[in-house]
């Protein structure tokens, strides 16, 4: 994990001191709310329905036990004992007091964390594959590049006031586990014919009111040119992006209105005219950053796989967890464990302080102190010896963290919705809970399936990318839910299609059950939902839900 150097420590400490003085002046009446709002937002502090909400940055979802314990402590001391992991791999605390926030930021700084740029019209948290560095199918660990981008993007003077927020994702594996194509700018690590590592650059993805998938603007940018090419793309956006209309301010609108060819042409011209050497990435610098992500000292001794298999054979619940939550590790004898924060009937993505402490303890004991946040709102222990898996699962299960539903129909992505969020127009959490309770018994029959729910058009719950997506809206004072079908976040990314009139809240579970029933009846062999949907189209789903036309 990247460790702060003296500059980083000083920078974050100074920022806390500045913010402490800003809060003091606000509480003393020396700053108006209009003056203070941008200052608190630059430090991740929003005002929501019940209190202030602090969004804490977790760079590319990487945590260690020390940070996780600190988050547990802050959650317990300053909030209500639980936090919400987000689709940006961050943590939100929803019951924060303004007067406590300088102390909270100081506590975060003590473990090399902050909340800078978790709001505002600048770069947000750069995200990556939660299996980075341990996935067998990756070209190279993407985390050093995410860290290089983080350093470049933090308070970048030219890009601190972009037309709108800007999200970047980096992925290095054959399987896209970072939803790269829904980002303003996406990077896939690639090798060229000479075997050199570089990046395919995609631009213009995003969800919200006008969803688009990112399109490739350059199939290969050499590693040395990564930052200069990003600067060129950002300059084009900064120059031509709409600042007069909030709904048209994201880069996706610019790319769409110019056309990807023209946008690419503009970026190329800017790039060729720029001083590319000024931000060139020398190999020595990449190596220096990469040294913070060197693999741990794995125990490469033989392991007792027979014991693992005996546990699987003797305990059906454990066997199911092994099937759904445990993934191959590139080092023999080890596994990547995804801890579900989707216990049926609970709030997706929520984690109590006690659970955070437990995951920290387990990370220390079994995963070289490392834990990660997945954008699907789950946690990951990346380096677990296989013989430790059964004991690990028992301890997780005893703490409400043993759900074996990763990638299953109850592993629902869900924003906080109207129960917490000031922007929401409908609730999302209770809908997710009802669906999960109803579908839990059918989970094995359904197989891999994802449902994604947003409580407003801003789409924090990624509803456009759900096999089934639900968007909650307010219709004359009543919560209704628009249904989209066929979305996908992975390699075959797709934006879902609205299939008909929105359904009432009380009818959502029945509607989901009906749609999934159509899928399980029509699928052929091992077909996934997107495959079936592409083959049969919307007609059978519409007819089942709305009746024949």
């Amino acid at each position: 994990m990247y460790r702060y150097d003296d500059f980083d420590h000083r920078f974050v400490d100074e920022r806390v001191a500045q913010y402490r003085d800003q809060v003091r002046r606000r509480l003393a009446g020396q700053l108006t709310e209009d003056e203070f709002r941008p200052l608190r937002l630059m430090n991740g502090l929003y005002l929501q329905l019940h209190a202030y909400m602090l969004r804490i940055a977790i760079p590319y979802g990487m945590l260690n036990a020390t940070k996780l314990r600190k988050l547990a402590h802050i959650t317990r001391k300053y909030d209500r004992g639980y936090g919400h992991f987000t689709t940006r791999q961050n943590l939100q605390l929803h019951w924060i007091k303004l007067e406590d926030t300088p102390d909270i930021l100081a506590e975060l700084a003590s473990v090399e964390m902050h909340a800078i740029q978790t709001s505002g019209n600048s770069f947000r948290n750069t995200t990556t594959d939660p299996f980075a560095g341990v996935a067998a199918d990756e070209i190279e660990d993407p985390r050093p590049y995410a860290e290089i981008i983080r350093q470049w993007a933090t308070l970048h003077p030219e890009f601190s006031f972009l037309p709108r927020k800007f999200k970047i994702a980096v992925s290095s594996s054959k399987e896209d586990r970072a939803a790269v194509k829904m980002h303003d700018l996406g990077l896939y690590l690639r090798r060229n014919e000479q075997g050199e590592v570089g990046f395919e650059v995609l631009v213009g993805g995003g969800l919200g009111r006008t969803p688009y998938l990112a399109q490739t603007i350059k199939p290969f940018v050499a590693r040395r040119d990564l930052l200069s090419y990003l600067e060129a793309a950002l300059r084009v956006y900064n120059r031509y992006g709409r600042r007069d209309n909030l709904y048209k301010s994201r880069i996706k609108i610019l790319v769409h209105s110019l056309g990807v060819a023209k946008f690419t042409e503009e970026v190329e011209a800017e790039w060729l005219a720029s001083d590319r050497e000024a931000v060139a990435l020398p190999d020595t610098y990449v190596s220096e950053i990469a040294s913070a992500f060197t693999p741990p000292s794995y125990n490469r001794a033989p392991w007792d796989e027979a014991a693992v298999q005996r546990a699987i054979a003797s305990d059906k619940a454990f066997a199911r967890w092994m099937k759904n939550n445990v993934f191959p590790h590139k080092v023999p004898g080890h596994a990547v464990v995804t801890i579900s924060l989707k216990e049926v009937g609970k709030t997706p993505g929520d984690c109590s302080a006690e659970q955070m402490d437990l995951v920290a303890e387990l990370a220390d004991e079994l995963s070289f102190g490392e834990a990660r946040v997945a954008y699907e709102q789950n946690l990951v222990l990346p380096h677990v010896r296989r013989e430790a898996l059964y004991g690990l699962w028992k301890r997780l299960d005893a703490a409400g963290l043993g759900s074996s539903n990763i990638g299953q129909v109850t592993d629902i992505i869900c924003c906080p919705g109207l129960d917490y969020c000031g922007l929401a127009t409908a609730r999302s959490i209770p809908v997710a809970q009802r669906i999960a309770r109803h579908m839990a018994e059918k989970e094995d029959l359904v197989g891999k399936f994802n449902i994604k729910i947003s409580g407003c058009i801003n789409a924090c719950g990624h509803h456009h990318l759900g096999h089934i997506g639900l968007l909650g809206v307010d219709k004359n004072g009543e919560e209704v839910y628009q249904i989209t079908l066929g979305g996908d976040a992975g390699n075959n990314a797709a934006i879902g299609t609205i299939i008909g009139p929105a359904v009432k809240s009380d009818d959502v579970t029945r509607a989901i059950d009906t749609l999934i029933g159509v899928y399980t009846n029509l699928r052929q062999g091992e077909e996934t939902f997107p495959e079936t949907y592409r083959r049969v189209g919307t007609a059978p789903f519409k007819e089942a839900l709305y009746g024949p036309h």
Partner: protein
Amino acid sequence: MQLVTGNRLRDGAVVYFAGAGRWSPEIGAALLVENDKAEALLAEAQQGPAPLPAVGIELIEATREAGHIRPVSLRERIRAFGPTTGPMAHHRASETARARS
């Protein structure tokens, strides 16, 4: 009918304007006025030395039912009584009930 609500500056808690410069976390303490008096109530709530005790000050619609004030919109009922699910579900409703008992 309408009342004035906001979030308390120092901790963000939901508060209601009770008149005479007072703000209360109890919706029952809110001044509920006819629509034609609402703008005047809002103006009164926004008066006072800086900093005002509340931010995000706005008018919302509410009714009085069996002696209890009830916001019209779901959003405002959630603000008044707490989230509808999770560890803090309806916590303000139960706190209100405890305070009354």
